[in-house]
């Protein structure tokens, strides 16, 4: 962990600094409103190669190939997008032992209006658990840098994927008028 990571004040600054400190150079995403400040900041930083994929599953394929080529990669998605990737996890990431770093903006809880998001939110953790994929829900900013930093190191050392579920308690989530 770097000084930058500990000095950062916003959650997205901490995530960016921790990715950078761990040499995660490739970030592929499917856009999300809550992740927008993180996506913008990553685009603005020449350290990263970053671009949108058309589908979350495609993003998983791209960072898997990058790992094979020796580059660490992360994917960013929202909760409903997670529903597109279980096959890629079960057939590619897990059996090929790829340390995919998966950041999910948690929707479907704490004030969600969209039933589709809510249902994926309820099934996401059981799916990850059944695949034995490490998944950590992050709610507190004071734990964010520690969790992300240590988990990236564990993912690389053990060649296993990790999923970071960023709770609205951390990010503020998406706000709707009731």
């Amino acid at each position, binding site marked *: 962990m770097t000084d930058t990571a500990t000095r950062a004040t916003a959650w997205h600054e901490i995530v960016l600094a921790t990715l950078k400190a761990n040499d995660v150079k490739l970030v592929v995403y499917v856009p999300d409103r809550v992740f927008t400040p993180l996506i913008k900041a990553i685009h603005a930083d020449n350290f990263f190669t970053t671009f*949108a994929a058309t589908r979350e599953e*495609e993003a998983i394929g*791209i960072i898997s190939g990058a790992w094979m080529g020796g580059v660490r990669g992360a994917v960013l998605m929202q909760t409903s997008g997670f529903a597109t990737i279980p096959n890629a996890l079960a057939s590619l990431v897990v059996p090929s032992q790829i340390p995919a770093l998966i950041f999910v903006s948690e929707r479907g809880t704490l004030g969600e209006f969209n039933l589709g998001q809510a249902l994926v939110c309820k099934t996401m953790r059981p799916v990850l658990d059944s695949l034995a994929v490490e998944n950590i829900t992050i709610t507190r900013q004071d734990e964010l840098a520690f969790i992300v930093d240590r988990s990236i190191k564990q993912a690389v050392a053990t060649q296993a994927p990790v999923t970071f579920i960023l709770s609205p308690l951390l990010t503020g989530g998406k706000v709707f008028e009731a």
Partner: protein
Amino acid sequence: MTAKPAGAIGAHNAKVMNRFDLTKRLVAQLKHDEAVIGGIGNANFDLWASGQRPQNFYMLGSMGLAIPIALGVAIAQPRRHVIALEGDGSLLMQLGCLATVAERAPKNLTMVVWDNGIYQITGSQPTPGAGAAERPRRHAQASRIRNGRTRNRARRIRSVHLGCGGGLVGPGGPADRGGWGRLGPLGRAVAGCSPAGRRGHPMEGTGPAVLRLVGRRVHQV
């Protein structure tokens, strides 16, 4: 899998290109540690049967992800040439990846699409694009992918349609309409540039299309 000898094409299809034969020719051309990603099903099995290499990745199960994986390798290792071997059926499952590739425009990526118009491994059911090729073809065009005849207008990606089948990409190519496209060195090396394939028709194990990116490294293959 037992490797079929290259000359084992029967008289009934002697004028149609054979996917396994082309895969073997392609692998034989690799002299610079090129990475090859085999797509799901027979594309993968043909790659395995063409001689195992540590630079090959034999993908199982992740239908449609051969090209995204190859794109990731190409981004990670810009000095290495990367080749994806994909079928038309699985490409249809992840057509959006063509837009992503067009946007990134890596010069070291070659995508080979074995376009036989069928899901051969599951019993040769026709693919959705086989009977009405226009829609996926337009999609490829929307992704700024063109066939060799229009390459000057499409600087980012060139595609060359080698054979018969549904014509997934490239309006100039379907062999059943007499088209042959314009083959570059890689296409000629792989296909042998024989005119014998021109009058073929869709059938099992035949009918590849090659999507090829602009770039000098392609010419070194």
